[in-house]
């Protein structure tokens, strides 16, 4: 287990938990939760600089991009053009090539628009980006993304921020079996055990934001997710027993006192 690292776009990471930096009460709380989670990659959004209130705290002053890998995302983008523009700007801020692509198709359920996502993946890969792609849990689409140059497949567990946990384990397992790319469950987890389930299905990692940021005690939940991911990974590698319909005694049947 010592050398069990996750490799994304040729870069090795010890932690298989990626956390989002949104929805926290403060930057201080966000930075502390990241520490508790042990995450080495955090997602960040690209937005306009506030030119009126310059005293507003900046993420980079609390979470050092030299110590933690920033994963710029395209949250809030509904077209390929918007997503490409956002990530080209993100790259310009400081050379970020590893990015999270997310093109949404519906404002209510926040499901990804896979046509636009696929289009964007192709362009980004050609431009030299390393693209981690938020996607539906459709194995066919996952295959197409892989063929389009994606560096990681990131299917949703359930709608973003819903906390419903993994809704389609079968599809996740099918995607796992068909791809050697990093498979990371992104969106919809609600509690630590959801992360364990994802890891036990053979996923390489999980991405969590709301479940930690909006927990009653975010630091405790960050720690719980850290441990849940480790537990799930160990459990997956250890190999589970077969399932039986009936009982199978654990103690020897011989030598019982009569």
């Amino acid at each position, binding site marked *: 287990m010592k050398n069990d690292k996750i490799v994304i776009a040729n870069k090795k990471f010890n932690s298989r938990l990626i956390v989002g930096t949104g929805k926290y009460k403060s930057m201080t709380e966000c930075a502390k939760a990241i520490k508790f989670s042990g995450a080495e990659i955090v997602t960040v959004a690209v937005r306009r600089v506030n030119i009126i209130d310059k005293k507003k705290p900046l993420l980079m002053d609390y979470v050092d991009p030299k110590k933690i890998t920033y994963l710029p995302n395209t949250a809030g983008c509904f077209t390929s053009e918007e997503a490409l523009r956002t990530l080209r700007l*993100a790259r*310009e801020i400081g050379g970020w090539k590893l990015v999270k692509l997310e093109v949404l198709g519906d404002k209510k359920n926040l499901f990804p628009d896979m046509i636009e996502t696929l289009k964007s993946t192709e362009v980004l890969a050609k431009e030299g980006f390393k693209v981690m792609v938020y996607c539906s849990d459709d194995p066919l689409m996952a295959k197409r993304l892989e063929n389009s140059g994606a560096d990681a497949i990131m299917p949703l567990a359930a709608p973003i921020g819903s906390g419903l946990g993994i809704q389609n384990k079968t599809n996740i397992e099918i995607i796992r079996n068909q791809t050697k790319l990093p498979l990371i469950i992104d969106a919809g987890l609600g509690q630590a055990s959801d992360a364990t389930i994802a890891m036990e299905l053979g996923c390489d990692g999980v991405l969590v934001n709301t479940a930690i940021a909006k927990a009653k005690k975010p630091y405790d939940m960050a720690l719980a997710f850290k441990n849940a991911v480790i537990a799930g990974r160990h459990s997956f590698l250890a190999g589970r027993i077969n399932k039986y319909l009936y009982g199978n005694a654990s103690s020897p049947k011989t030598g019982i006192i009569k």
Partner: protein
Amino acid sequence: MNGKLKFVPENYKISDLVKDLKISLKKVAIELNQEIMDKKKISKITLKKDDKMEIVHFIGGG
């Protein structure tokens, strides 16, 4: 600029704007009329009437 009207003096460069707004260049990306600017060259670009500028940075997000 960033969706708001801004009046600037004549012969005003992008680098003047960055300086006046006390923006740390390392933390932002600049777009002028939907074209990403090379931060090394902004002292050579003078702003014109009706230019549309976006200055972005990273904030918390999932």
